[in-house]
């Protein structure tokens, strides 16, 4: 029931929601999170990942969420390559009969996606300099809550 994708292209939230719920009348709520590239201080991000392992890790996270909450489906899309401020990096959708399950699963999915899917960000500044983004301990703590 889970859709998991790594792609260079932008995602379209409405289209992904429509695909998730197509033909269903048992969905009562869809939780959604879109992570976006933030920063007046950066010119671009470049996202690297570990092809193969990434999809496995994302599918495992989705399966865990579907086991914990009674989801009717979920969608995880993560972009790779070059992105500029304002663009969406990651999309999480979780559909359920009830809103609380949809919202809780959305939080779980994004927390775990951040800490257990092999992606790495490199920041490019306006002056051309660049550096790899350091991991935040807060992310590990957020994932450990669940």
């Amino acid at each position, binding site marked *: 029931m889970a859709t998991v994708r790594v792609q260079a292209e932008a995602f379209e939230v409405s289209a992904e929601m429509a695909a998730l719920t197509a033909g269903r009348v048992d969905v009562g709520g869809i939780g959604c999170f879109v*992570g976006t590239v933030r920063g007046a201080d950066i010119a671009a991000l470049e*996202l*690297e*990942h*570990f092809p*193969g*392992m990434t999809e*496995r890790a994302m599918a495992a996270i989705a399966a865990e969420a579907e086991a914990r909450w009674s989801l009717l489906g979920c969608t995880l899309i*993560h972009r790779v390559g070059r992105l500029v401020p304002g663009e969406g*990096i*990651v999309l999480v959708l979780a559909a359920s009969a009830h809103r609380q399950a949809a919202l809780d699963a959305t939080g779980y999915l*994004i927390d775990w*996606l*951040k*800490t*257990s*899917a*092999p*992606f*790495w*960000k*490199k920041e490019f500044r306006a002056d051309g300099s660049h550096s*790899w*983004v*350091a*991991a935040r301990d807060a*992310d590990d703590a957020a994932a450990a809550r669940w």
Partner: protein
Amino acid sequence: MYFAWLRERLGSSSERVAMPLDVSDVAGVVTWLRTRGPAFAAAFVPENRIRCAVNQEFARPDQPVHANDEVAFFPPLTGG
């Protein structure tokens, strides 16, 4: 396989290596890699919190490593 800054610093994204016979787990691979030159010795230190995956599954230092296993090293994850 190496990813992110580790890949850049080691100047290699993947290599096929023959490991000494006494290397049997992830910790052993790291110890051996550190003997391969200053870039390796400087990268594989505790404060860099290098993570490992064996055959595309996260692996701890005591995870066994066999011939033909795919072993990947990378910095802490920063996706999302």
